[in-house]
C-alpha cells in the first residue's frame, strides 16, 4: 500500500510563477547536494523549506518561493527513514564497498548512491533520508539508562525523476501573492 507524503520544494523567486507551476519541480545539481542530483523536497515540514529559503536565498538578497507536492511513498522510494529493511540493505552495500576500498576509507552516503546509480544498480525513483537538527527532540523512554527516541528529524526526499510525484498536486504555496 502506498502512502502520500507532502513535500516542500524551495526555489528562487524569479517572478515566474506560471513557469514554475507548469514545469516544476527543478533539478538540483549543486555539488554539495546530500543525496546527489535530483528534485529535492523537505518532507512534511514547510518550516524547513522556509529555513532553506532564508539561508539559501534571502541572506544573498534574493527572494524565494515554496512549492508543495504530493509524493508517493511506494515500493520505488528507497526509504532510509521509515523502512528498516532499506536501512539494513544500505549498510550492507556500504560494507561491501568498503571491503573493496583501502583501509580507513569511509564512504559517504552520496558516494554509495552515486556508485549504484552510475552502474545501473539502483532501481528506485526516489530516496528519503534524515538527519538531526535543532528542532529534533529527544524523548526519553523512561529507562534507567536514559534511552530516548529522536523525533522530528529533518527529512529530505530526493526524486531522481518525477515518477513518484503526483504532478497535478505541484503548486506554489509561498509567497501568497502567487497562490491561486
Amino acid at each position, binding site marked *: 500500500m502506498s502512502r502520500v507524503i507532502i513535500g516542500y520544494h524551495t526555489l528562487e523567486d524569479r517572478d515566474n510563477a506560471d513557469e514554475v507551476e507548469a514545469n516544476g519541480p527543478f533539478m538540483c545539481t549543486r555539488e554539495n547536494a546530500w543525496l546527489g542530483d535530483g528534485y529535492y523536497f523537505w518532507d512534511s515540514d514547510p518550516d524547513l523549506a522556509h529555513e532553506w529559503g532564508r539561508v539559501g536565498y534571502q541572506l544573498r538578497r534574493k527572494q524565494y518561493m515554496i512549492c508543495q507536492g504530493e509524493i508517493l511513498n511506494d515500493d520505488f522510494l528507497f526509504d532510509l527513514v521509515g523502512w528498516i529493511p532499506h536501512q539494513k*540493505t544500505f549498510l550492507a*552495500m556500504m560494507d561491501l564497498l568498503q571491503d573493496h576500498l583501502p583501509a580507513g576509507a569511509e564512504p559517504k552516503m552520496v*558516494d554509495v548512491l552515486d556508485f549504484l546509480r552510475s552502474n545501473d*544498480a539502483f532501481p528506485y525513483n526516489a530516496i528519503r533520508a534524515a538527519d538531526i537538527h535543532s528542532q529534533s527532540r529527544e524523548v526519553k523512554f523512561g529507562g534507567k539508562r536514559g534511552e530516548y527516541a529522536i523525533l522530528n528529524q529533518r527529512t529530505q526526499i530526493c526524486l531522481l525523476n518525477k515518477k513518484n510525484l503526483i504532478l497535478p498536486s505541484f503548486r506554489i504555496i509561498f509567497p501568497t501573492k502567487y497562490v491561486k
Partner: protein
Amino acid sequence: METQMLDRLREVLASMSKKEFLTQWQEITERNKDVAGPTVREFMANFSCPVLDQPQHFQLTIDIEFFSNAGEYHFAMAA
C-alpha cells in the same frame, strides 16, 4: 527489490578489476568532495558578507577564559 539491488552490486563488483573499481570510486568521491553540509565558500556567502561579489577579508578572534568554581582564573593560578 532491495535484495536484487544488493545482488546487482555484488555482480558489478565481481565484474570489475580492482583498478577499474578504484578509478571509478576516485571519480565519484572527487565529484562529491563538497558534500558535507555547506562549504566554507557558501557559509561566507550566506552568513558573513553583506557586500556581494567583492573580495572580502575576515579575521576571527576567539577569547577564551577558564574559570574554576571559585571564579579564579586557572591561568592565573598556574602562573
